[in-house]
Structures are given as C-alpha cells and as structure tokens.
C-alpha cells in the first residue's frame, strides 16, 4: 500500500533550472564544486556560459550571488545543504536576506541521506536556521512533482528563497494535477483520531504510517507543510482542531524545525496536546538509509509505533 517511487529531486532541480534559463536570460547557476552531485551539470551542458563554477568557497559564492542579484541576475545556488546554509550564513544574512535580494538557494542532500558521509554532511537544523531568518522563504518539498513546482514558483518570486532537496529518489506523493501554493499546507489524508503534520520527504513515509495505523483502527488526519515560512497558520490550526491531538514528524531536529513551528503556532492560536518526532537534539551519523530511519524513529513503522504510544499515553491521562 506504500506510495510509488518518483524521480530524484536533484534531477528535477537540474532540469527545471535549465528549462527556466532557456527562456529567462537572468538565470545563472553558481556551483560550489558539487555539480556532479547536485545535477547542476545538466545546466552546465545546456548553458555553459551561464554556469559559474565558484570552486570550494561557499562564503564567497553566496556573496557573488548577492552581487549578481543586485545587478539584475537571478542566481541559483548549487551545493549541499551543509555548505549552502551554515558555512556562508553571515553572507546570507547580511548580503542576501537583509537587502532581500533575488537569490535562490537550492540546497541538495537535506536530512539524513547524504551517501557515505555521516554527521558532517547531515545538517539537522537548516529549517530552524532559515525560517528564523527574516525575509527568507523556506520550502521543503515532499517529492519530485512538488520540487519542480516550488522551483518554478521561486523563479517567479522576487526575493530570497531557500529550497531543501533530498539526495535519493523519494516516494511520489502528488500527481500531475497537484498545484503548489506557497501559502498553503496540504491535507493529504482525512482522519479523526490524531493529526500527523509533516514536511519534506518525510511526508510520504507519514502517509504510509497512516496506512499502517488504519489497519489497527487509528484514523489519522495527515497534513503536509511544504512551506515552513511563510507558515500556513490557519491550515495548521484547522488540522489540529480536526482531532485535538497532534504529532509532528520531520527528518530534522525537533528544535526550531517543523515541530517547533507547529508548537509555536498552536501555543499561540489553539493550544493542543502534541508530540514532536524527529532528531531529538542530536547529530546524525553514518549508516544505511534504512538504518538511519529506524535509528531516528522516522521509518513508517517507527512513526506508527510512536503515534500509537502517544495515543495510549494520552488515553491513560
């Protein structure tokens, strides 16, 4: 009953930005020596004169992007989330977010799946950091379909955008009829017992978890939140009120990420009992994808287990 596999988000990234550049002369790609991994190489083949290799020098790369944006270009950044967010953070803050410049930071290798790299390449708090940054739109797509649409939305928007993509092929949540709306969260399953709220490539696994829970009689309402900022406050409150119990699930730290954002929202607008699943104030580590999901409680089975435990704990009160 699990969702089918889609295409890798990074392929969609390479193709979509290339297609945008076909018709928009402002589009340039700045690479931090990772074009083979992020698939910016697709862009290099199509538009070699607008593919700008910045070398292994991310702080400078984000500064150069700011300068190009201030001169009318629309730079897309190609590197891993690890080196797109934390290494050049001060450049992002002062040169891009404060002047609200038109730079599109498309970080690849978000979350735990970084392919033989371990904790140095697993940034557990990129959502927390970027959504706290004034002016920075922060998007975490669920699959390849949503990735393509989010990138096209970003190109149509004038200002800084951060989109985090995962490395490996993800399950496909949406079909071609899907229309990404930056201001909206998406109810992907209706239910009555508990509301599961998720973001990024974790959402398809949460949908599978809801299916597992349905077999044991638990009806889950599932909300996908692709945009962490601006946050769909009304959508989150409505989803929480549907069941009165919320579990957030993210391939990310629970501190400041989706769980933090939902807790802030509900605390202010509609206090609701909730549980945050995700990395519990810890760094990542080396292991296979399956082992990582299991270890950090993010596989469908482990999510289902923890939701069941949370419901049992609430029932005992």
């Amino acid at each position, binding site marked *: 009953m699990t969702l089918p596999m889609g295409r890798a988000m990074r392929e969609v990234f390479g193709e979509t930005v290339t297609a945008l550049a076909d018709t928009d002369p402002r589009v340039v790609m700045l690479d931090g020596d990772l074009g083979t991994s992020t698939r910016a190489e697709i862009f290099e083949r199509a538009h*070699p004169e607008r593919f700008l290799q910045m070398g292994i020098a991310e702080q400078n790369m984000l500064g150069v992007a700011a300068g190009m944006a201030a001169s009318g270009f629309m730079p897309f950044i190609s590197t891993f989330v690890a080196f797109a967010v934390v290494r050049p953070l001060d450049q992002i803050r002062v040169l891009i977010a404060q002047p609200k410049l038109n730079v599109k930071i498309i970080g690849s290798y978000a979350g735990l799946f970084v392919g033989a790299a371990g904790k*140095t*390449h697993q940034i557990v708090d990129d959502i927390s950091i970027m959504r706290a940054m004034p002016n920075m739109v922060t998007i975490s797509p669920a699959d390849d379909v949503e990735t393509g649409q989010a990138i096209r939305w970003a190109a149509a928007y004038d200002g800084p955008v951060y989109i985090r993509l995962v490395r490996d092929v993800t399950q496909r949540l949406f079909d071609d009829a899907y229309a990404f709306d930056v201001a909206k969260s998406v109810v992907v399953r209706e239910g009555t017992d508990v509301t599961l709220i998720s973001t990024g490539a974790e959402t398809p696994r949460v949908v599978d978890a809801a299916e597992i829970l349905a077999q044991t009689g638990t009806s889950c309402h599932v909300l996908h939140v692709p945009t962490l900022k601006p946050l769909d406050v009304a959508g989150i409150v409505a989803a929480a009120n549907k069941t009165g119990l919320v579990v957030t699930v993210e391939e990310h730290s629970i501190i400041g990420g989706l769980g933090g954002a939902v807790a802030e929202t509900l605390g202010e607008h509609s206090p609701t009992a909730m549980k945050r699943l995700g990395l519990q104030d810890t760094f990542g580590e080396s292991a296979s994808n399956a082992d990582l999901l299991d270890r950090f409680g993010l596989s469908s089975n482990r999510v289902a287990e923890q939701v069941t435990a949370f419901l049992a704990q609430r029932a005992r009160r």
Partner: protein
Amino acid sequence: MTSLPVVPDAGDIDALREAARRIRVEVVRTINTVRVGHMGGSLSEADVLAALYFGAMRIRPDQPHWPERDRFTLSKGHASVGLYATLALRGFFPVEELLTFDQADTRLQGHPDMTRLPGLDMSTGSLGMGISAAVGMALAARLAGSPSRTFTLLGDGECQEGSVWEAAMVASRYRLNRLVAIVDHNKLQQFGWQGTGHEDRLPPEEPGELVSKWSAFGWRVLEIDGHDMAQIADALASATSQTDDRPVAIIANTIKGKGLSFAEGQYLWHVKIPTPAEFAQAMAELGEPVDAEAAR
C-alpha cells in the same frame, strides 16, 4: 597478515613504499566491499600518509592519547578511507574493521570522527577547517612547551576555501615552525571548471600557483613529487628540522586515483565504485597476489 615495519628515520624507503602499496590495497578493498567512499583522493594521498605514519611522525598506536605525540588532521576529510587504512595497518585498530566503514555503529564514520576512533586527532569533513585546528594544536604545543609537531593534509581544491588562508596567515604570524601543511596537489577537485570537452576538467589551480601563494603567506615551501617516496621522506625531514621560524608547506604533486590505470586523472573517480572487473584489475595493478586475495 604480516605486520609492516616502522621506519623512524625514514631510512628504509622500500619499507615505506610497501606501506603505501598496502594502504592502496586496503582502500580499494574497503570501497569495493562497502560500496561507498572517496577513491581518487584516498589513492593520491597514500604515499604521503605512509611516509607520515610509518616514518616521520612520533606516535604510539597503543597509546593514542600520548600527550607528546605528533598530531595530524586530515583537512581533506572526505579521503577518510586512506587515513583509516593507514591507521589500521599501523596498528591502531584491526585491519578487518575497515570493512565496517560508514556502516551503522562503526568507529569509521564517513568522515573522521574523533569521538569514535582513538588515533584521530580531529573531526573533519567540511573542507577548509582541518588546517585551522592544526594551527590551534601547534599553538597549544608551543604554549604547553610540548615537543609535539603538527601535520595537516589538504586537497588542492580545498585550498580554494578562504579559511585555509586565514589559517595560513595566523600560522606565519605566530611563526609556527613545528607546523607542516602538505597539499595533495592531484590537479582535480570534485567537478571544477570545464576543459575542452565535458569529460575534461581543469585543475583547481594554475601551475605554480600553490607554491607562490603559500610563499606569499610567509610559509617555507617545498615542492616535491608526492609519489616519490625518497622525495617525500626528505621533504618531511627538512620540514621538521626547524631550519628557520616559518611554518612549512609541502606541495606534493600527485595523481588522483594513483595506482589504478583506469582511474588516474579521471575526475569521476572522486567517488566512483569499482566494477568486479575493475576491482580485479586494481588488485593486479597494485601487485596484490590473487591467491592472497582469495585466501582472505
């Protein structure tokens, strides 16, 4: 498995060569088995690592925390397999453990993690940082009055990071002449700039650029063939002799993928995994008897 001799004064060049060959064999075997890991840069650094760990460095594998040991940081942390193979062969941990690389619960994390594996002096993996930590260790040794020397190994692509030059500036300002930075100048990074065809990528730096930059930052610079063991040993001997008060940079001219004819100089071998035929060819080219291979 026979243990490899240690060559304190680097007099026995043949022994160091054999250590380097064994490092390459274990790099290829490990990556081939676990199907992950950075091949190209682990092979280009093998001779330098052999000369350091089997020659120049004052270390005690049975006492990895010995306070007066020489320190080493792998600033190009992605080439961890090369370092792990070196540490295993030098006796820090069993060679068989190499096959746990990057697996769940391993001490051999994808990038070096000093909290897991004794023998690692620093955690690295984000480029341009290991040299800063090495500067800190050299400063600490001086303040503590310790005879410890500090070595760090950088990639030539890594030298594009601005922080490398922040570290270089401070090291020469404080005249850290017990600090040795070796650049594995293999003329390739991961992707880099396009050459004439798509398959062809340009080197991270122009010829001679690294020598002039490190000199301009106030370092004593030695340029060598990083696969010629006699030259490496001589350079390390000179670098640790404190002939003047400058820190020393050794620009080691190397070949990415060194030792495997099909990988040498190919940028895609930065992270490629061998096919069964390539693995067999690699072992043959590295002079690893097929029987010994089967017997393991």
